[in-house]
């Protein structure tokens, strides 16, 4: 669910001098405990997602391949961790480790584009309405109000129903639909943030000065507004990313996101719960659960550290 809690990064960021150059930013990040922890976790998660096919080859199990003879015992109970199945198997005799790694991949493949799309749309709308003001500003404000009061999951369900073709097969890939749904709800936060920043910037002396000097709108947009809005928006992207990842996992958990047999951390956890087999093979649940927790924790820690570094006055 898109969250309502993350407070927009303060405009104060603009007046401070955050470390702009890359190396100094990195040093500052390494000095912040939360950022350091987060950064390492994020690197680990990305590596895990990248090496998924490698691990699959190494252990010789594909993500959707079933090994009913070796992975399930006589009564159909999946085996626990062993030298062939490092995290054991699931109810269908598939390798939990390989599926968890591929699920991590899906989390990033949905979360990153969804948040980025939301950022692009939100920033364009926010900056435009902040600069133009008037009726356009009011209309977008009203639209944002509407989107915010729409219940997320029910809307997502209706949109997924819309995606079902006459033969019951999805028209476009569910991956794309999930990305679009998450972005459709998340852009509002970016729009609010960037509109607020733009309005504040517009009344700043340096923008006034530019206007007095006869600067064109385009100049004000590209030289005065965007360079100051973008860094804040990018930090907020990092704040919003874990929320998007959770949103995908939740949709998949409820059975309306990424569909089996494609592994997603959400639908793996749902499988474990539905079959109750995790009660005998706990790694069936723990594998994807720990992975999801670590991903979200890592990104949360990183983004919060990033905020600490860039906005020392904030929390």
């Amino acid at each position, binding site marked *: 669910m898109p969250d309502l809690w993350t407070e927009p990064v303060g405009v104060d960021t603009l007046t401070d001098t955050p470390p702009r150059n890359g190396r100094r930013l990195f040093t500052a990040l390494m000095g912040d405990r939360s950022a350091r922890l987060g950064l390492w976790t994020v690197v680990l998660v990305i590596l895990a997602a990248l090496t998924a096919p490698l691990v699959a080859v190494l252990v010789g199990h594909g993500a959707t391949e079933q090994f009913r003879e070796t992975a399930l015992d006589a009564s159909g109970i999946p085996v626990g961790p062993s030298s062939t199945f490092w995290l054991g198997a699931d109810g269908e005799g598939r390798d939990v480790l390989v599926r968890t790694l591929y699920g991590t991949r899906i989390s990033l493949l949905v979360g990153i584009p969804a948040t980025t799309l939301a950022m692009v749309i939100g920033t364009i709308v926010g900056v435009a309405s902040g600069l133009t003001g008037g009726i356009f500003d009011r209309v977008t404000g009203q639209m944002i*109000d509407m989107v915010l009061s729409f219940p997320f*999951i029910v809307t997502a*369900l209706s*949109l997924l129903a819309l995606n079902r073709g006459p033969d019951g097969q999805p028209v476009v890939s569910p991956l794309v639909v999930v990305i679009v749904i998450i972005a459709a709800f998340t852009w509002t936060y970016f729009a609010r943030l960037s509109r607020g920043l733009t309005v504040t910037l517009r009344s700043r002396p340096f923008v006034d000065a530019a206007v007095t000097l006869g600067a064109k709108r385009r100049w004000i947009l590209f030289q005065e507004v965007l360079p100051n809005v973008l860094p804040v928006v990018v930090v907020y992207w990092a704040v919003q990313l*874990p929320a998007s990842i959770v949103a995908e996992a*939740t949709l998949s958990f409820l059975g309306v996101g990424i569909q089996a047999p494609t592994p997603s951390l959400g639908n793996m956890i749902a499988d474990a719960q539905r079959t109750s087999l995790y009660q005998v093979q706990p790694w069936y649940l723990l594998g994807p659960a720990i992975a*999801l927790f670590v991903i979200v924790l890592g990104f949360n820690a990183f983004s919060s550290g990033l905020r600490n570094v860039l906005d020392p006055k904030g929390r």
Partner: protein
Amino acid sequence: MLRHVTQLLTRSVTTLVLVLLAAFALTRIAYRDPATMLAPRNAGQEGIDAVARALRLDDPWYLQLKHYLFRGPDIQGAPMGLVNWPPALGYSFRQNTPVTELILSKVPVTASLALGALVIWMTLSLVFGVEAARREGTAIDHGLSALAYVALSLPTFLTGMLLSYFLFFTLSTHGIYLFPSSGYVPLTENPFEWARHLLLPWLTLAIAEIGIFQRVVRGSMLEVLGTDFIRTARAKGLSEQVVHYRHALKAALNPVITLGGLELAVIMGGAIVTETIFGLDGVGRLAVNAALEGDFPVVIGTTVFAAAVFVTCSFIVDIATKLREPLRT
């Protein structure tokens, strides 16, 4: 103030109307062959035709919308439109019940869930937040913020599953039946059983919220603690306890109220995940099942209901924080 209230009211009502229109459009576009989907399961062609007639499904969309708003399907002579008396949000042919009635019957469950969780999360967040701000930089502060991170990073469905695994399944294998795994007992029937059935769902919701609110309370407290007004309170010789909990907390409460109202509104509109995991028959489950089955009068109804709760809560929160403004230093 009056001008502010009127503006806010206009905006809220516009939002609701837009949500209604969008929900109507979305469901009409999303569901193909609605008459068949909406008719009772074993209905023959006649039943399907009757549904199509009752909803005027053969008319162009604007006439359908007009019919939906101003008349609605006649059920035993009673119109089920929004602009009739009593106002209704249509009729579920699947469940043979007016949508409004259906939603209202589920509200007690969701409201119990939301309000109980609110009490737990607010109490704990206020105490944790104030104590963390009071001891800024100490081990306790770091410990509390680490806890907040963990709580924040646990998706609700995971918290719910872990709680029901450890506090229900593991305990019950040892013969201890502290909590039921699911179900709901009305408060009026048996208050003790009501609380016992809701405790795990409350905790599930509260844990996620504590992760957010502890940090908000702490941040807001730190801001207030640096102001002159607190220095004055200390100079008057008030005890630290009074300074923190009476003076500072009161002034630091505004962001907590704003956020609390909105979070409460979201949960009240249907705590889908928690309701699903703990088998609570609330508004959220009603909405999801309706969306899955394509019972779109219920989908529109629950969407409008959730939006109405959200809009009302934000309205109240806005007024409340405005009224508190003189308290702000």
